[in-house]
């Protein structure tokens, strides 16, 4: 049984890690060797990375992606925490209705909203503006984030806000001074969640942004892939360059994200 567990574990590690390994290793191979399936490059080269960073607006794309992702993260957190506090810890008319309304966002295929959202953004003059991406990413991150918060709120005994209420603390003060510190892991979780949603979004980023100066990474990546030529050197290097920032980010906050998820979520 124990042996089986180890074998299975190793197989899973391979399953998860091999694609990363293979793409990474390929991106360091010389152009004439990249099509050969060597598990270790005969010769290492940074050629693809050099060319990519010089010939494509990678750094601009990266900056834009970071801006959109952090923006989405802050706004999502700021909107979701009060809303979920109301939904999970307050009694009021229409509570269920609002809850389902927020969750209903799951139901609609996002790509069918492309054109109407485009028209909407253009109505408020936000086309080719990174804020349009933040706005729409918040929309898609918020429902699941709200839902994630349920476990965190439920794990706080109701007596806590009751006793605070007796003390005469205002509702907002209860939220900020007593509840918020208790749900800090939840905050971290939804913050990272919304960051990831935003970081990986592609369809709206390609539609709402028209100039190179405002392009984000996923769209830049799509252009590298190109339709007329297949350059696996660039494609794999580009893939790595898109993955690395998020790996670093995750290296720093991943622990809190996963711990938050496992401590708080749906029980």
């Amino acid at each position, binding site marked *: 049984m124990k042996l089986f567990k180890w074998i299975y574990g190793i197989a899973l590690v391979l399953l998860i890690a091999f694609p*990363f390994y293979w793409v990474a290793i390929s991106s360091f191979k010389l152009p004439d060797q990249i099509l050969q399936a060597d598990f270790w490059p005969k010769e290492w080269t940074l050629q693809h990375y050099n060319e990519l960073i010089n010939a494509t607006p990678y750094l601009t794309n990266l900056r834009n992606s970071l801006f959109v992702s952090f923006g989405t993260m802050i706004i999502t957190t700021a909107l979701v925490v009060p809303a979920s506090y109301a939904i999970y810890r307050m009694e*009021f008319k229409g509570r269920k209705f609002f809850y389902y309304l927020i969750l209903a*966002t799951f139901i609609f295929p996002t790509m069918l909203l492309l054109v109407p959202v485009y028209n909407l953004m253009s109505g408020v003059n936000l086309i080719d503006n990174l804020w349009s991406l933040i706005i729409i990413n918040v929309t898609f991150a*918020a429902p*699941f984030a*709200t839902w994630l918060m349920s476990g965190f709120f439920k794990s706080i005994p109701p007596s806590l806000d009751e006793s605070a209420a007796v003390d005469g603390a205002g509702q907002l003060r209860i939220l900020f001074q007593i509840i918020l510190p208790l749900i800090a892991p939840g905050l971290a979780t939804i913050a990272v969640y919304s960051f990831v949603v935003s970081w990986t979004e592609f*369809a709206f980023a390609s539609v709402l942004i028209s100039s190179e100066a405002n392009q984000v990474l996923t769209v830049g990546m799509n252009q590298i892939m190109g339709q007329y030529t297949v350059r696996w050197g660039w494609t794999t290097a580009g893939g790595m360059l898109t993955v690395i920032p998020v790996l670093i980010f*995750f290296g720093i906050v*991943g622990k809190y994200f996963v711990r938050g998820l496992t401590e708080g979520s749906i029980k």
Partner: protein
Amino acid sequence: MVAKQTRVRKKKNRIRKAMPYLLVGPLVIWILLTVFLPLSSVIRESFYSTGFVGTQGDFVGFENYMNVFGSAAYWGAWQKSLLWVVGNMVVQTILAFSVALLLNNNRKISQMARTWMIIPWVIPTIVVAIFWQWILNGSYGVLNDVLLSLNIIGEPLNLLGDSTWSLFVIIFINSWHWFPFLAVILLAGLSGIPKELYEASAMDGANKWQEFWKITLPSLQHTTFALGLVGTLWMFNIFDLIHSLTEGGPAGTTTTVPVLIYQEAFESYNLGNASAMSVVTALFLIMFAVLFVRFAAPKD
């Protein structure tokens, strides 16, 4: 004096009453503006003969809906969508459950693995597509190379372009992308199960297998219910991975409903029909959600 106090109390009371709405309001308004407002324009378009995006069609009543209900392509896409959803749920459930059970302990390595295994989920779909296209490539993919050199196959496999296998291959790829996230959520559920339950059953002499069915699964019912609902909707609506890996091909074998809607709107230039398809699809999904909540919701 007394009157003033009551007024203050009344005012306080009003704020107290309004508070939940003030808290939930911003998010609700946000979502109404960015989802339900655009959605209303989709519903409107579904009654017009609009062709190319941007042009103005004529009002045609329910004609688009008749087209949709009579369309073999639409129902064919539903068949693929069902297969897609079921396939994803099965593969991901198996992978996620086994991983979660494997890592549900306090060993250091498990703690670390919990964090890093989620990496496939944090990379953009388009990069996932590149990863696997590169590995599975029918001419110089490493998988073919390994299989050929081990003499397991005699001819390179064209997995993504095979009309029998491509759907299963993209189900696998999508599962690779998503299962880590599900696994973490399941882990959350597992860590919430009181240890005493297991101790008690161990005293009764239950083996691991019985333990799983008698304790683990029932204790996870809230988690599995939520994942069943949200996961199904998520998987159903996945579009970009399929679009970038196969574009619905070969010969339509991976054309799920969202892919078909996209093609109808942006490749066949039939926005009216595409909108009607979207509305019908959304209605089916709502029906599913309602039924699922009614019949599968945990009883307590």
